[in-house]
């Protein structure tokens, strides 16, 4: 079943008339982890915001299940690169922001938000402000917020790029766990990354974009159970394939 479908999505910024993307199509199926890689500035973040319903595409459309996305939707959630925690709210209040569309009582929201923080190893930090936390902990709060409303699709814009490698590794496995665990609502992840190794490690499918105006250059399907052995020949081959697809662009 297709969770997210992009049909010939094109985009240009009205104010600068800069053509960012040209007719991008791909699907993210149920259970799939999709990574998007591409040269810097090619429009990955913009694309993710279009999928989230934050900005409308100039042409083409994005479907969730079989409905066109026209505005943000509680079934699709977003993890920001800079965490985007509101510094003036405590951690538990930040997670509660993720429950804004839920009709449950305020106490129930408090309870659920605390449980989520607990699940991400942050019990005891409920009433601290985000600035008291390390980067990794902040992003955990960001992830807790984004899964609070039980979304089916998780969109992530370079979620680990500002974290150290150890923290990133543990958060990656949290995401994979959520995707693979049937009891957790998340059943599709679309992640933008510039880290090719990360893409091969996590993705079922890697979308390689060209420089702007960007189009889909190559879609590489990656097989194999996670966690994957980074030292295997297969792993290196996938990485080479992605690098090659990216590099062709640079040479042109």
């Amino acid at each position: 079943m297709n969770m997210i479908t992009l049909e010939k999505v094109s985009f240009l910024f009205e104010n600068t008339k800069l053509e960012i993307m040209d007719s991008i199509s791909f699907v993210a199926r149920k259970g799939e982890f999709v990574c998007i890689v591409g040269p810097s500035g090619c429009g990955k973040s913009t694309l993710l915001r279009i999928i989230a319903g934050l900005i409308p595409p100039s042409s083409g459309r994005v479907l969730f299940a079989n409905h066109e996305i026209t505005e943000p939707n509680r079934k699709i959630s977003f993890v920001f690169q800079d965490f985007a925690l509101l510094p003036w709210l405590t951690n538990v209040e930040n997670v509660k922001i993720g429950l804004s569309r839920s009709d449950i009582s305020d106490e129930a929201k408090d309870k659920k938000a605390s449980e989520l923080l607990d699940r991400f190893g942050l019990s005891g930090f409920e009433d601290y402000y985000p600035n008291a936390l390390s980067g990794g902990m902040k992003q955990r709060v960001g992830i807790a917020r984004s899964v609070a409303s039980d979304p089916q699709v998780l969109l992530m814009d370079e979620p680990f790029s500002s974290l150290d490698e150890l923290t990133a590794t543990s958060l990656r496995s949290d995401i994979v766990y959520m995707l693979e665990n049937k009891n957790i609502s998340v059943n599709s992840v679309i992640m933008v990354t510039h880290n090719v190794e990360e893409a091969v490690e996590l993705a079922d499918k890697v979308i390689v974009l060209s420089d702007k105006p960007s189009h889909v250059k190559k879609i590489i399907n990656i097989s194999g159970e996670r966690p994957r052995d980074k030292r295997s020949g297969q792993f290196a081959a996938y990485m080479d394939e992605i690098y090659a697809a990216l590099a062709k662009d640079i040479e042109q």
Partner: protein
Amino acid sequence: MDFFALILQLILDASASWIRMFIALGISIVISIAVGIYAAVSPRAERVILPVVDILQTVPILAFFPFALYIFVVFLPGFIGINAAVIFLIVTSMVWNIIFGVYESIKTLPKEFLELSDLYQFDRMERLKSIYIPAALPRIVEQSILSWSIGLFYLVTSEIFSIGISQDQVRWGIGVAFATLVYQGASQYVTAIVVFICFVVATRFLFFRPLEKYSVRYMRQQARVPQPAQGYERTVIGWVSRNISRAPSVLTSNRILKGRKHVSHLPTPKTRHDLRMLYYAGLAAIMLLLIYVFATNRMLLELESVVFPAIIASFVRIWFAFAVMLAIAIPLSVYLIFMSRQSSKYMIVFQIAASIPATILLPAIAVTLKSGELVAFAVFLLSGIWYVIFSVMASTRTLPQSVFEVKKIFGVKGRSAWSNIYIKAIVPGLITGAVTGIAAEWNASIVAEYFTNASGNLVSSVGTGLGKVLDLSLVTCKSGASCWTAQYGLPALSGSQGLMLMGVALLNLVVMIILINTLVWKRMYRKVSKIYMG
């Protein structure tokens, strides 16, 4: 009067005022460069200069104008004295934030630049010319724009004020024109306002715009490229830290302690706490001493019995007007920032509105409203409100895109949006606005609470108030007049007693400002910066 003659006269008046302004700005910039650089390069100077500038900036210096006028006119008679007093006053309103601007830009200069100049053995002049001044220029210009609007307020207010004391009156000046023309008819008065606004707008676009462009010419590309919703400039933390660093002076001692990279000689949190305790103890000791001196001196006690109720009355008036300001400014700015999302369009409008001093309306307000209390309220409200709106807008102008995105993605609406996003996002701006707005109100008090027309006749007056006491004591100093009997039922005071009264009033004002800064704003700022910046 012939319309063209009127215009010509107004242009001459405004030009005279603008000459005072430009002289004051020039003096301010020179002082700022010297003091700012000195404070930034010498840790010892820094320790003295920062706290002093900090206090001076929050004292409503306009309240000292009667005193300054007295001193200047005594020593420099006639034309020179009065103009020197006005220029001096404008300088004291302009100089502080430019000093901080210079100080901060040098303080945050990458170490490499200084190492570079060591490497090539620049002498002091070369260093100044090729490193310090260019590095500080963008902030100097930015702060000068702000200073200019504050200065206009002082200019007009002091010109209007000088009229009450007829023999020291400023002859040429737009403030004088306002106060005289209001009696000649609405159309003349409105023409004067139009001419004034033209001058303000022309200065903004013909003088500051090019300067702004020039000062940031090497940053142009960076600044102009539309930033995608990421990168330091757009992150929440980046916003907060820039925003807080725009917080006003009162807050500086703290601001400097926060988030500065190479200021290793600064106290650690622990000693900072000790320092604060020491500061409180010192403050308490000075208070006790003052109370003792006042309690044991009958004369002082008698003066204090006039001044104390006066300062309380002004305080209530000013804070009441401030509460009304908040009730207007908060919904308005939230609407502009979050709902219409057009705040950047209105920014320049507010910038210009904020630089049009409310006191240009004072003569008209005083003539139409009649009641002294109403006049004071209207002038206070108009003096402060733009600062509040302006600093809220300025502080949220760079709010990271992701805050808006979080709101949309998670569908935050209604009450939750107000309490979780709108109100809290504007808090740093509100604090800045409150400090500057309330200072503007105190400044306006010398004309708002007691206003005399060009022939020296009283137009409007409140029952009692600090501004009124200061005005009256100047009149007393000048002529030993017995206005005290009429207004306060006191025996006529001699000139020196009048001067003493002024001193007591100013002392009360300074003590109150320091107490409020310490007990209210610094605390609030500490709390906010802890939450917002970690």
